[in-house]
């Protein structure tokens, strides 16, 4: 059973052992509107927690995607290259962007659970 954690910047990470898939929340995808482009990092790239991992564009907005945890990019979801609309269709499933090798599982404690994130959204 995988666990999902969220950031205040609306990224999620789904942890499976030492690895985790990263994407943006349904809420964020809805706010951005029709996604037209996702700029993905190169596999092998190392990132620190809350540093820029990827970038996402819609028709009228552009925003950075921050890494929920520190780690190394293992793979990226190449579907993004041709069909970035998958983020709108399935932000928290098929619309994952990057798979990370998590370097410090302790960092997950700084993130929100699904329930906490839903509560957080109500405060916005």
């Amino acid at each position, binding site marked *: 059973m995988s666990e999902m954690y969220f950031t205040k910047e609306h990224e999620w990470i789904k942890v499976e052992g030492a690895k985790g898939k990263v994407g943006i929340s349904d809420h964020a995808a809805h706010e951005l509107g029709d996604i*037209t*482009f996702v*700029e993905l990092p190169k596999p092998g790239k190392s990132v620190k927690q809350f540093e820029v991992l990827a970038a996402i*564009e819609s*028709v*009228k907005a*552009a925003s950075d995607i921050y890494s929920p945890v520190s780690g190394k990019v293992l793979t990226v979801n190449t579907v993004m290259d041709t069909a970035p609309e998958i983020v709108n269709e399935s932000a928290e499933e098929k619309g994952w962007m990057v798979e990370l090798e998590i370097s410090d599982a302790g960092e997950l404690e700084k993130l929100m659970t699904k329930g906490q994130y839903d509560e957080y959204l109500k405060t916005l």
Partner: protein
Amino acid sequence: MNDNHYCPHTPEEISEMLSIIGISSVEELFAAIPGELRAKSFNLPPGISEFETFDRMKAIAGENKSDMLNFIGGGFYDHIIPAAVDHLSGRAEFYTAYTPYQPECSQGTLQALFEYQTAICRLTGLDVSNASLYDGGTACAEAAMMALRVTGRNRIIIDGCVNPFSRQVLKTYLFNLDVDIVEIPPLDGQLNRNALTEMLDDSVAAVLVQNPNFFGCIDEFTELAAQIHAKQALLIASVYPISLGILKSPGEMGVDIAVGDGQSLGNPLSFGGPSFGFIAARKTFIRNMPGRIIGETVDKQGRRGFVLTLQAREQHIKRQKATSNICSNQGLCALRGLIFLSSVGKSGLAEMAILNRDKAEYAKSQISGIPGVTVLQGIPTFNEFTVALPQSADLVVSALLKKNIAAGVPLGQYYEGSENFLVVTVTEKRTRKEIDCLVKSLEEALCN
């Protein structure tokens, strides 16, 4: 009497507006500005009528020499402009509109710019074009910055045969960045390929060349492009659009980004501006393009329409992370470029290019007959060529100016040790008689 009749309100209307606002004088509107911040002086002369204004402007224009016979280029060229260009670009629906932010009521500008982008793509043999840049020099700088973004590297190599003004603009744009700019001095009027090969390594983002180059020489960059691509660097070529009527296109040579000044396409000399810069590139680089881009789409009923697209690259959305700071570009000048290209058309542009070269070749042969003058031989040229004079080109040029002939651009100011060299430009507008006049005057100047 109102001091400014372009402000149409009558005193009664002003009082009515003030009373609706709830104040008694216009001055009260400025009450938020503290007294100590107010202008202490404002010394402009009093206003005049439009008739007096036009007379003043005529007098100013009259202080320039108007009948100068131009054999000068340097990036701006004296070409024909079909009458339709002025009339159509002079339609107020075009020139008094602004950036087409609201596509439904700006389809005229948007479609025209889409057609312009298409013309630039076809001319350069590349996949994508933006809706114009400021001028040829800034286009070189934008292309270099684009290459820095694409490659993530920090070194730009510039061929010294590129227009010296454009080279300077590029260096000025980049001087506060952590970028290494290397210039390769020309070798006999051409790119020093050996020097380039030695410099080309994995730190190089792009190499900038020009065709035809500042000396007028035509080059072929296919092999060079392959060599540069082998290092995962980009080749940027600055090109003269009229020459593309016949010359191999940047796309055919493997160039990654083509740029240039569009003045020669239907824009008057106008003492240096406005003209426009163009930029075209391979499709993979589209997100790194600077400036506005027009894209085709449809409305709900499936009708074709055009919009500003990929705006998420731009300053109004991405602010400091934008691919460029460009807001206003040179839209109307690009429109003139499109009308010009549509007017001369496919065969006309080729014909015009041939006419330019024929005239220049005629001038070249006549000038090379002047005793003591040599013309660089062996390297093909388009409508400009370099001649070596037996004395300082500066002196000869200033002597000919007195006879209303701008005989060419002396190279001494731009290249050390080139004091006797002169670049002569001959466009389709110069008649055989005018060329003969140049040759005769040159001969006389050199005899004295």
